[in-house]
């Protein structure tokens, strides 16, 4: 028998605390589309995506209605485009990006991910050409997302790739300058990238994945935040328990939707991603969770400790609720997509350096951070290298999504609207690391004994 309190609790979570399914993402392998001829490749890619994901949006909407739970995004991730066989130039890849954009428009999805390359150890000719195509690809499309994996704990760090990404990010910012440099909001640089992540902009369909797969990303910072508020003055053991229980419930809902989508679409279920993904909506903020735990404002000393507790408890609660957990799974701390983070950055409580230290204990990294448009490429590379090193040394995923807002300086802001939100431009340390970055080469993989 269904309990009245359970019913009211669920409805309250959805209505008042912004509980939703953040994304149902269908992963599609494009490996069998390979061709040396770019037009043939584009046709095959378009046909495969539009045919395979034909029912994704209507089925998503049906599930949404049946369970009364909003599914905010329906998305598609594809095999990293640089891995499609055949020899291709940068111009070819731009053409392919436009094809992906067209397919996404036809399907009615809101993003398509996978315009990317895995170069943690070195470049293939195709991956180099693809990376060079990123600025034009992102400025001439709306729905295509791009990611580049430049490091892993097993391979070390490809510093040549990081050096390249500094220029690519600046060029992308310039080419999308009329639109607040929004191109950079669709470009992520990764270390230890997960192959089954349903969240954009970093989603792609990994090489070890099945032909097609359904991955689901849940949300729910507002629910956790309210649960902590209701708990009042309890100690941290009790608080961790409350977070675990809440995370369990949120994830169970994700599991239900994933299972149902997989059944209706006749596509295997991949994973549920446990990430606490905030939105700019008031109340749906990871920063507010930390503040409800007892910080005056996010960014205060104690923030890393609170975040570490939160991240661990979310995983512990979520793991039991789903048969397969994967993706990024942790608390996201994007600045522009989180009302509390925006407020903390604006008041000066939250600095870029504090954000870097926070990423050592949570998913995913420096996310949606606007920096001055005149930041030199070497400093951007330095920021990336620092963040990527944290991931490599700690055997975790880290990522960088920076927006050097063209023509703007610290103190101003950029606004993208929708889920991408609004970001105050944060100050960066202006000291140069140009000589260090210019050395290039590879940082060797870290040792995994003598842990200190």
């Amino acid at each position, binding site marked *: 028998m269904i309990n009245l309190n359970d019913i*009211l609790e669920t409805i309250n979570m959805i209505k008042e605390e912004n509980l939703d399914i953040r994304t149902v993402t269908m992963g599609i392998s494009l490996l069998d589309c390979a061709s040396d001829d770019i037009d043939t490749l584009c046709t095959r890619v378009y046909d495969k995506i539009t045919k395979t994901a034909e029912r994704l949006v209507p089925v998503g909407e049906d599930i949404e209605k049946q369970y009364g739970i909003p599914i905010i995004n329906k998305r598609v991730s594809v095999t990293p485009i640089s891995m499609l066989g055949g020899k291709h130039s940068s111009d070819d890849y731009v053409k392919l990006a436009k094809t992906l954009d067209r397919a996404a428009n036809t399907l009615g999805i809101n993003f398509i991910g996978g315009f990317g390359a895995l170069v943690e150890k070195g470049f293939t000719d195709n991956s180099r050409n693809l990376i060079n195509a990123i600025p034009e690809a992102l400025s001439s499309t709306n729905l295509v997302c791009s990611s580049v994996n430049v490091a892993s704990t097993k391979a070390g760090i490809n510093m040549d790739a990081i050096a390249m990404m500094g220029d690519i990010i600046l060029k992308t910012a310039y080419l999308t300058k009329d639109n607040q440099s929004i191109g950079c909001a669709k470009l992520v640089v990764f270390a230890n990238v997960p192959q089954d992540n349903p969240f954009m902009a970093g989603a792609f369909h990994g090489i070890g994945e099945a032909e097609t797969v359904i991955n689901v990303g849940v949300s729910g910072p507002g629910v956790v935040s309210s649960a902590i508020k209701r708990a009042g003055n309890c100690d941290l053991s009790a608080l961790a328990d409350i977070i675990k229980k809440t995370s369990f419930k949120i994830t169970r809902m994700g599991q239900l939707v994933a299972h149902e989508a997989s059944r209706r679409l006749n596509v295997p279920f991949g994973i549920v991603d446990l990430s606490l993904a905030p939105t700019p909506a008031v109340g749906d903020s990871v920063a507010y969770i930390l503040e409800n735990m007892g910080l005056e404002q996010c960014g205060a000393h104690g923030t890393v400790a609170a975040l570490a507790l939160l991240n661990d408890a979310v995983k512990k609660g979520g793991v039991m609720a789903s048969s397969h957990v994967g993706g990024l799974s942790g608390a996201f701390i994007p600045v522009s997509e989180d009302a509390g983070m925006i407020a903390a950055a604006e008041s000066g409580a939250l600095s870029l350096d504090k954000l870097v230290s926070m990423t050592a204990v949570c998913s995913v990294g420096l996310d949606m951070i606007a920096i001055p448009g005149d930041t030199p490429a070497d400093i951007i590379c330095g920021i990336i290298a620092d963040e990527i090193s944290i991931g490599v040394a700690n055997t975790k995923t880290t990522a960088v999504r920076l927006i050097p807002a063209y023509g703007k300086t610290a103190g101003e802001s950029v606004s993208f609207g929708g889920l991408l939100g609004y970001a105050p431009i944060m100050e960066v340390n202006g000291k140069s690391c140009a000589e260090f970055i210019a050395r290039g080469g590879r940082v060797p993989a870290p040792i995994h004994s003598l842990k200190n």
Partner: protein
Amino acid sequence: MKAVITVVGHDSMGIIAKVSTVCAEVGANIEDISQSVLKDYFAMVMVVDIDKLNIPFNGLVDKLTDLGKQNSLDIRTMHEDIFNSMHRI
């Protein structure tokens, strides 16, 4: 299979009658009703059996959502699975 219908809003004449009429029209059998009026607010939770629906379940969701809009009420119709999966191990 069951569904849960929740109705929240300002109290007015005939709310239960209107929801029950829609349920009867589409073949949803009402199994349980719990309702309370706090000050001027009306809150009702209704459990209905949907095995013998004569329209698709989502059709019932649409009908009740529309009824809610016409009467300035928040009416939600949700399949029982969401509650079972969230609150049962």
